[in-house]
């Protein structure tokens, strides 16, 4: 993995206290500035695995190294890791949206001026201004998801972990957020996205893992998303655009509708 390695996980397993097996013998690596996806069906252990990778949970077995070291202080990682959990309600526990946005930066000791600059930038993307004084329980699901994302990004993380991040966003906001995340990625932020919805993966990832309790597939996003057999065997369905293009014997297969249309037009 070289000097650019951020996370290196081997033989990771996790069993919940009630005996439920969540993850078994999974591996993962992430380098600086990479965009990686972990896909899998419901209940395949993706969220648990993401929590282990973001140092929020200790694995039951296996080894995990952060920045090449096994024993890294959590405090050190928190300044670099931004985590967007699957349920935005878990992330919004303050009396107002503003206080929720301030929570992370104040915990890691960010200066107020720097936070205010960041807030301006986030406001442009997530349209936060009208929400700042509201209590989180008054927000719609989409608004909660926007605020939860902004909360994780407010610390200017080096790595962003996203767990089903776009489930409640409308198409316009999804596009805007994807553009912003990719801009941050170009500036050096790595991204680890967990999702069962494959349609978003080509836009935010270059490399992908297929997790179904065990790591059953690994490769480029193209390799994973076009492997219909592997996806089917693991309870997932290939993207409709891939299926149609495959039926039309297109080579290489498009992963997005835009690519598909472009390919049809050039034909």
């Amino acid at each position, binding site marked *: 993995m070289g000097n650019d390695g951020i996370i290196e996980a081997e033989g990771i397993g996790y069993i919940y206290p009630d005996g439920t097996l969540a993850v078994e013998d999974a591996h993962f690596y992430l380098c600086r500035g990479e965009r990686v996806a972990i896909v899998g069906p419901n209940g395949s252990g993706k969220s648990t695995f993401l929590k282990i990778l973001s140092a929020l949970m200790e694995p039951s077995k296996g080894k995990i190294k952060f920045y090449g070291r096994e024993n890294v202080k959590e405090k050190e990682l*928190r300044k670099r890791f931004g*985590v967007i*959990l699957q349920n935005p309600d878990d992330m919004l*526990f303050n*009396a107002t949206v*503003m*206080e929720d946005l301030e929570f992370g930066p*104040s915990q890691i000791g960010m200066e*107020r001026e720097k936070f205010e600059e960041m807030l301006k930038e986030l406001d442009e993307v997530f349209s936060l201004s009208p929400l700042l004084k509201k209590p989180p*329980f008054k927000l719609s699901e989409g608004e909660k998801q926007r605020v939860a994302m902004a909360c994780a990004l407010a610390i200017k993380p080096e790595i962003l972990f996203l767990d089903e991040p776009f489930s409640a966003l409308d198409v316009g906001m999804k596009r805007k957020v994807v553009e912003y995340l990719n801009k941050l990625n170009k500036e050096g932020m790595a991204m680890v996205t967990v999702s069962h919805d494959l349609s978003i993966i080509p836009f935010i990832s270059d490399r992908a893992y297929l997790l179904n309790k065990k790591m059953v597939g690994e490769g480029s996003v193209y390799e994973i998303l076009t492997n219909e057999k592997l996806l089917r065997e693991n309870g997932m369905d290939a993207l409709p655009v891939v299926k149609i293009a495959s039926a039309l014997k297109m080579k290489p297969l498009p992963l997005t509708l835009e690519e598909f249309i472009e390919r049809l037009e050039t034909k």
Partner: protein
Amino acid sequence: MIDIEKTAEEITKVIRNFMAAEEFSYINGYMQGVAAEIKIMGSTLLIFLAITSRHFIFPLLLLILSIFLALSSRISPRAYLARFYIIPLFSLVIVLPFAFINADITLHGISISRSGSIYVILFTLRVMAAVACISLLLFTTRFSSILASLRRMRVPSTLVSVMAIVYRYLFTFLTQLNDMLIGRRSRTVAGKRSIRGATRFAGNFMSRILFKSDAVYIAMRARGFDGSMKTFSKKFEWNIPSIAYMGVVAIMVFLWVMTEL
């Protein structure tokens, strides 16, 4: 028969209104301009004086002052009264029997105790003034500012952290309770309720909040919480509203001395 659903819904509504009131702390009003430290110290002193007062006059004055300050802070009177009527009402119900113990006078055919009635009125007034005062503080100060001020005032960090966590958990648990109530109502056909149903509901709620508390703790850790609560600290600065508020508190102390001594 027990209507736990209705009770829980009412409690949720009251506490949610209480939480939602923090929106007023962002308005540009008089009390919002007073430094949090001054407000905390002033309110604590006024509450202490109100609860130690032996005459009606001081709690009554404090109540009028709180309402006046709330209006000058652009807090809607309805929201303000809605926030603090429950506690004094509750305390009135608790102490009301004192008005009938050892009855010595008859008023419109009802035998009451003179000293007992005075105690009931004084007690309720004290509670009303104290709650009005604390409500004004919470209406006009962001919770994070209160925490930051308490830390600057050298209140032990463990105590501040406990306060912050209780506040945060209360807020998430209420959301949870509300969701459960909505879910239950959406699947309730007949209005039949039983003690067994109520205990099952309470049990479910307890196990859900246990699960939720883990989720919230993980989310807090994910955002850098390491056991001690930190807030953006704003330097304390003297300003005209703070000095004016100190003047008001000083006048109230003088009035307390005049009425009590």
